[in-house]
């Protein structure tokens, strides 16, 4: 708990606010002190906590796998190498199963997405108050910040910017490969001449356009929605801690139960994000007739 002086609403609100650095409406750059200020910054703002964890975890993933790749032996693998191989094999099997064209980008892309998203999702299992509380203490102790103004969201995938950022990258790749494989005419034809033939072009464009746009949007929203909801439940359960020893104990058990169940969601969402990426890119490589 962030303290007894704030209400439940404030507590939840606090947990859902990113640590934001951006351009204040009056023109100067700085950290937002509350949710409203962050909103007022508009587009020219960056979520420092999301980016920090995202990059930290991505770098951790690459460090781990790069280290494994350098020390690899084709003889008997150690435990660590075994784990890395297991992950790589798992991703490789999925790519082989769903991706029919030949493209050296897709498998490493899938691995990056799977493990990175998995790590980011796993941050959800860290007790909701632990890291934000530490951040508050550090902020208050070293930077003289008001603890109530220190925001620190730990799970990057509960930030739509993160999921949409990745989905946008995948969307660009989809467009790129669609045009590269089928040509601009071919890609346009795919959008314009089906399902109703060339006389139904406006309807075709509308339908296919929506279907095209919905792919990255659903990809990003699915991951965001699942993790956001999961995080929200952790926060709500954490509210029980302020209700005395009985409610607090119950809350502890609930946290544990939800965390165990949430492991499933964490893996599943990382897996789904990867598989859909592979499938979408496979569709971009397919010639329709």
């Amino acid at each position, binding site marked *: 708990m962030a303290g007894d002086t704030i209400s439940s609403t404030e507590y939840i609100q606090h947990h859902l606010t*990113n640590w934001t650095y951006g351009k204040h409406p009056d023109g100067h750059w700085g950290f937002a002190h509350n949710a409203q200020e962050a909103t007022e910054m508009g*587009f020219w703002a960056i979520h420092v906590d999301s980016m920090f964890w995202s990059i930290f975890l991505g*770098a951790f993933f*690459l460090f781990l796998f790069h280290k494994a790749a350098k020390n690899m032996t084709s003889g008997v693998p150690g435990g660590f190498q075994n784990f890395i191989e297991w992950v790589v094999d798992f991703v*490789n099997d999925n790519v082989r199963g769903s991706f029919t064209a030949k493209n050296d980008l897709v498998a490493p892309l899938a691995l*990056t997405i799977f493990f990175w998203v998995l790590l980011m999702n796993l941050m959800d299992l860290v007790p909701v108050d632990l890291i934000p509380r530490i951040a508050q203490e550090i902020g208050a102790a070293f930077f003289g910040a008001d603890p109530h103004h220190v925001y620190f969201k730990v799970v990057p995938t509960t*930030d*739509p910017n993160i999921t949409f950022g990745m989905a946008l990258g995948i969307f660009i790749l989809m467009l790129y490969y669609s045009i590269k494989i089928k040509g601009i005419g071919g890609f346009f034809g795919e959008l314009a001449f089906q399902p109703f033939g060339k006389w139904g072009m406006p309807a075709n464009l509308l339908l296919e356009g929506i279907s095209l746009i919905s792919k990255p949007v659903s990809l990003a929203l699915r991951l965001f929605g699942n993790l956001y909801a999961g995080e929200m439940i952790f926060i709500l359960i954490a509210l029980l801690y302020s209700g005395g020893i009985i409610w607090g104990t119950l809350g502890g058990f609930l946290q544990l139960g939800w965390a165990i169940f949430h492991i499933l969601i964490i893996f599943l969402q990382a897996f789904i994000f990867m598989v859909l990426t592979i499938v979408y890119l496979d569709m971009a490589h397919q010639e329709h007739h």
Partner: protein
Amino acid sequence: MNINLTLFAQLVAFVVFVIFCMKLVWPPIIAMLDERKKKIADGLAEAERGMKQQELAEQGAEKKLAEAKQQASEILGQAQKRANEIVDDAKSVAVDEGNRIKEAAHAEVEKEVNRAKEVLRSQVSTIAVAGAERILKKEINASSHQDILDDLAAQI
């Protein structure tokens, strides 16, 4: 919950990470896995070849063993035959030798008998003449009775 610059920052980070993974992480791991696959396949093929060779060797050994057994029994048979032959030979030689010795003895005996007869023959006339002289108390001309004496000697 605001969409802002973070989206593009994440996009850039995403691109960088994917490129890093594609250049430095994925290829060595996959190369290693392929190498392992090849090693295992080679190992299995080698093992199979080894098994086959062993089987062949076992078959060869069995064949050789059978041959050796056959040869041994052949040699044994031959040896027995040869032994029998030798025994038979020895027997016949011994029999021959015995016969020969017997014959020689017979011949010797006959010769002795003949010689005795000859001696007797040569002396018979003399003895007969001497006997007759004693009986007749007179000289008998042996030559006048030569045919009777010869006849007597021939009867012996």
